[in-house]
């Protein structure tokens, strides 16, 4: 965990008081709605279909139990008793009242959380691997760098009014759990031949109506230079990114229009001119931030404790363990993923009661730490294996032990037309129906890893392009239709899915998805071949034939 010091706390409180003043000026009419809109967006406040929506940052997905309890408090006191975890390590509250927002922010500030730059055309919450610091094989903890970048990008005087939003993600593992290739800047931590830490820098990824996979702009930027290099990218973007058309304003369009070579050259020139600036991080500066991350005092525990051997006779426990428990870098410990995708539930939602109870469990079993991942699930990052059986029972009572992590019902979905003023179609009811269709966990296990991502409009908050199966809501003559793509992925081999056929009406979506899954079961050459690999091997055509033959 990163511990905020007096300076971090002061800054958050100063931001709260500024926002309080902005709300006051809006309510008194001193600020027009047009002016206020930009200001509230800088602080995570959207106006949705029914109410204001409030998005709170969970930087690089790390939460203390104190913070989680405070989120529960905000849900209970200022909202309707629940929150929605998003694909970018944020939590959203959907029913907040404008006049109460400053108080909610002040409550959060007391535990070191905030909503700065969770929306608006600025540098958004810096995201990372939810298993950072505990994943086996990780090169080093990417959160040190995430925190350095979080600080640097917070209330940046030059880059708070960019052409469009700007998202940075960092990974330090071979397997990319942070989806860096669909970010404006993706950073892959690795070491050079001299063993020094640095980053492969990727730029120009993003989804929305013009999706692009990020391209490598520089294979190795030394860690000490990472802030200045990011600043150089942003300066080029701030000056030359398009501002005439909101749909062409992301950096991906600038990179595409200039071409990566030309864009890289512009950045390189800017970077050279910046020279040896104050942005260079010396060893002491990096160590200063590193020193404020604390790590659990792990015990020396056996790889296979008796508790685990005994519990292996319980088939429900075993099914959950095989699905939701992952190896930890320390022997005797595990990472436990908590599915927020119960059968029939809206993906990513958690109630205040669940958050409070989970905080208790994290205190008891995970050194007081909880993680949030981009798949809209939570994780307990340091669970002793001997505690797994007891934890399973407790999670099951809370409805947080659905054994469907990475399976067909572990669906990513945006809020869609049920909440969002941009949406063309509903997302949540589609997800709910699919979880019912595939409610049998044994069947889901048989199908294997399969990511379904649903967006209610082209803005792609549900990351439909990179779902193994992507579902995009569109509007046709006043009715909800859905375009379906297959073969997308968001990991280190990220790519966009391919359209399988004509859009289908709301009522047929679940049938079509079932047909696609059946086609896969018939087409895969062995049970271990994942859906996405079958699509890669055979292309879309055999799927199209089977699914659309009778339609």
């Amino acid at each position, binding site marked *: 965990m990163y511990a905020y*010091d007096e*300076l*971090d706390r*002061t*800054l958050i409180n*100063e931001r709260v*008081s*500024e926002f309080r003043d*902005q709300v006051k000026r809006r309510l008194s009419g*001193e600020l027009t709605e047009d*002016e206020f809109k*930009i*200001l509230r967006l800088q602080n995570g406040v959207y106006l949705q279909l029914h109410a204001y929506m409030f998005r709170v940052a969970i930087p690089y997905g790390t939460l203390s139990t104190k913070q989680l309890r405070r989120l529960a408090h905000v849900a209970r006191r200022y909202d309707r008793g629940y929150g929605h975890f998003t694909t970018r390590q944020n939590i959203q509250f959907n029913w907040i009242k404008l006049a109460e927002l400053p108080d909610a922010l002040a409550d959060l500030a007391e535990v070191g959380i905030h909503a700065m730059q969770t929306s608006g*055309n600025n540098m958004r919450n810096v995201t990372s691997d939810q298993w950072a610091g505990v994943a086996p094989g990780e090169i080093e903890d990417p959160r040190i760098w995430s925190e350095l970048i979080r*600080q*640097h990008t*917070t*209330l*940046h*005087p*030059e*880059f*708070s*009014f*960019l052409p469009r939003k700007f998202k940075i993600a960092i990974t330090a593992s071979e397997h990319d759990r942070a989806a860096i290739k669909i970010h404006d800047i993706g950073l892959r931590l690795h070491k050079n031949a001299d063993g020094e830490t640095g980053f492969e820098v990727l730029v120009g990824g993003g989804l929305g109506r013009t999706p692009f996979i990020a391209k490598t702009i520089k294979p190795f930027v030394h860690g000490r230079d990472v802030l200045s290099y990011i600043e150089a990218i942003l*300066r080029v973007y*701030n*000056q030359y990114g398009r*501002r005439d058309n909101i749909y062409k304003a992301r950096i991906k369009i600038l990179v595409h229009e200039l071409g990566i070579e030309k864009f890289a050259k512009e950045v390189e020139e800017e970077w050279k*001119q910046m020279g040896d*600036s*104050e*942005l260079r991080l010396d060893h*002491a*500066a990096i160590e*200063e*931030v590193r020193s404020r991350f604390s790590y659990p005092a792990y015990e020396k525990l056996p790889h296979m404790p008796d508790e685990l051997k005994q519990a292996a006779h319980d088939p429900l426990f075993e099914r959950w363990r095989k699905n939701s428990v992952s190896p930890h870098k320390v022997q005797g410990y595990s990472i436990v993923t908590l599915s927020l995708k119960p059968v029939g539930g809206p993906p990513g939602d958690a109630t205040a009661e669940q958050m409070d109870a989970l905080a208790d469990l994290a205190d008891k079993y995970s050194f007081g730490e909880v993680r949030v991942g981009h798949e809209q699930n939570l994780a307990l990052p340091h669970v002793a294996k001997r505690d797994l059986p007891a934890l399973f029972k407790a999670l099951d009572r809370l409805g947080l032990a659905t054994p469907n992590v990475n399976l067909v019902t572990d669906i990513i979905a945006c809020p869609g037309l049920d909440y969002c003023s941009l949406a063309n179609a509903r997302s949540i009811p589609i997800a709910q129906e699919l979880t019912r269709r595939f409610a049998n966990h044994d069947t889901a296990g048989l199908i294997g890893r399969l990511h379904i991502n649903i967006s209610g409009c082209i803005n792609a908050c549900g990351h439909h392009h990179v779902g193994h199966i992507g579902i995009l809501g569109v509007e046709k003559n006043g009715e909800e239709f859905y375009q379906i793509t297959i073969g997308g992925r968001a990991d280190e081999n990220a790519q966009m899915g391919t359209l399988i056929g004509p859009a289908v009406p709301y009522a047929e979506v679940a049938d079509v998805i079932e047909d696609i899954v059946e086609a896969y079961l018939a087409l895969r050459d062995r049970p271990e071949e994942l859906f996405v690999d079958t699509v890669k091997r055979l292309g879309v055509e055999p799927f199209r034939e089977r699914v659309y033959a009778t339609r």
Partner: protein
Amino acid sequence: MPLVKQGRITTDLFVHVADGAELPGDGAVLVTAERFLADPEALLRRPGKVGVVWPNNRNLDDLVPHLDRLASVALVFPTFRDGRAYSQARLLRERYGYDGELRATGQVLRDQFVFMTRAGFDAFEVKKDADADAFAETMKRYSVFYQPTGDGRVTALNRRMQQRHSESAGQ
């Protein structure tokens, strides 16, 4: 529209002269980039200071050679969501060493004062009277800054390092 300089509302000594309008015989003027670049020498010869309003979509290269003879550079915020002039301001101050008046014009609201000051602006044509009145108050709003810029404010990281240093020195 009130002008804020040195932290308070002051009389604007500069007159904005539109393209095609006649220049006053003397006194300080602010002219457009086109007018200035058409004949910089003639403008600089006349009695009275000269400032240039530089558009936010124009490269600074044509302006840089004249910087040491200009009394003001005015950068433009067509709307406050358009942040290009922040980059221009930092480049003028930090890369090209410009130390004359750097003026923010356009949609200038109190919510930008801290950002603008940190980027190097020291004069503000403020849209609303109430915002101009609140300038000094608004500038006190923040005491912690994460980024180093040319304004010399000490960053949080440097403060921490200094603290650490003095703690270890005191032991």
